[in-house]
């Protein structure tokens, strides 16, 4: 009776979209190492859609799996669609998370949203800088 189901394990063992985007349009960082989990999301936007999503994560198996799943769910979505990705939806796509690890799905959705907000606020203020 493993703590994580197969889907979670798959995303932990073979995480999708790991990395940074050097010229990202938006970056979102949540959590901090003191709490045990920290995620940084990088996005590329084209025509209001997430053309590319990458992440780096410090954290437990669930944190890594969640990051991977969020990146997969987000890719190709419009910004507004992507912002609507809920922690619940992430956990559901992972076919469930242990109770104590649910907060990881929170962090993942938050980090993505933060990256999108970062992009949107940059656009509003004009320039594309970090």
């Amino acid at each position, binding site marked *: 009776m493993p703590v*994580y189901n197969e889907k979670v394990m798959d995303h932990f*063992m073979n995480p999708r979209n790991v990395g940074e985007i050097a010229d990202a349009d938006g970056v979102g*960082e949540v959590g901090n190492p003191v709490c*045990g989990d920290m995620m940084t999301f990088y996005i590329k936007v084209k025509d209001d859609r997430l053309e590319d999503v990458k992440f*780096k994560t410090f*954290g437990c198996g669930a*944190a890594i799996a969640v990051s991977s799943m969020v990146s997969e769910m987000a890719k190709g979505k419009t910004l507004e669609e992507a912002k609507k990705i809920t922690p619940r939806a992430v956990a559901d796509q992972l076919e469930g998370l242990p109770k*104590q690890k649910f907060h990881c799905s929170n962090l993942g959705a938050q980090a993505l949203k933060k990256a999108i907000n970062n992009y949107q606020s940059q656009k509003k203020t004009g320039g594309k800088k970090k």
Partner: protein
Amino acid sequence: MRKVYLDNAATTPLLPEVREAMMPYLGDVFGNPSSLHDWGDGAREAVETARAQVAGLIGAKPEEIIFTGSGTEANNLAVKGLALAQQAKGKHVVVSAIEHFSVLHSARTLEKWGFEISEVAVDKYGLVDPEDVRRILRKDTALVSIMQANGEVGTIEPIAEIARITKKREIPFHTDAIAAAGTIPSDVGELGVDALSLAGNQFYGPKGVGALWVRKGLRLMPILDGGIQEGGRRAGTENVAAIAGLGKAAALARNDAVKRVKQLTPLRDRLLKELPAKIERVVVTGHPQNRLPGHASFCVEFIEGEAMLMLLNSQGIAVSSGSACTSRALKASHVLIAMGISHELAQGSILFTLGIDNTAQDIDYVLETMPPIVDRLRQMSPLYSKFTKASKGGK
């Protein structure tokens, strides 16, 4: 795939001899030790034989041994039972900051009952300074409880020195020897303590059984009320098979002590030396010398312990990250924090605890498997990329 169990601090495998010793009591000799007929006699004989064996391991009198249902129960009985029985003397209890939760949370319960708890700090190696204990003692100190060895970082505490101080002050001194007994010498005479807890599943005995030794004459309040088993100090039908197993494990530990330490120490030392040599930014936790013979613990920078654990598991290697019972909790180990390790670094805790089944090949396998795992997780880690960027920038 090679299978390497290196989580003996969480629990050890059962020795075949121990299992053999248990089998009659899972078979024909199934009586209740309180029963006065032949069936009861057989069971009682098993319990009393085990009592003598456990007493033999720690140099105690058999009648001073109380069997419990776990190490945790032994610690609860010691901390609550001794403090409550001594409360006429005072309501002050001293523990170290790195005790197991079964001691710390028992102390917290005592606090609810009007006791005052003082925590003795430890140094960066997890060592208690006996002088700190001396300073913290009060007229109304009813009990001191400091562990013989810590299960998370392996550090062995200067129990005999502390005991000299408590003895002079006539304050009862309990030591949680659950991580130590059966692995290193835990002779109650040499330690000079007044009470000592141990657990079978830490030295190749069964789960579901522990023991508390309490020096004759020292009063103890039971925490499980009921029948008059264990001299009225622990009610409940005895777990005869597990007790018989604990006894056998104690006898074997006593016999093989020197051999086991000799076998484990060099393996442990290789890990302690070579892992930090092979992987940058890995620190050994716990004391460099005064540590359990099979205990190699580290903090790995920039990555998190559970993730390492899971990847090692995928390669057939069992380890832990912090103590087993907190591994599913979320917080950084209170032990590492008490040693002054940062929360961030403490997240990267990883713990290899060797047992008598381990070989040099197991260590080779770990030394070969671990670096790519650390590397893989660091490639994912935003902390590591910040670090590498900063180093490059610094150059």
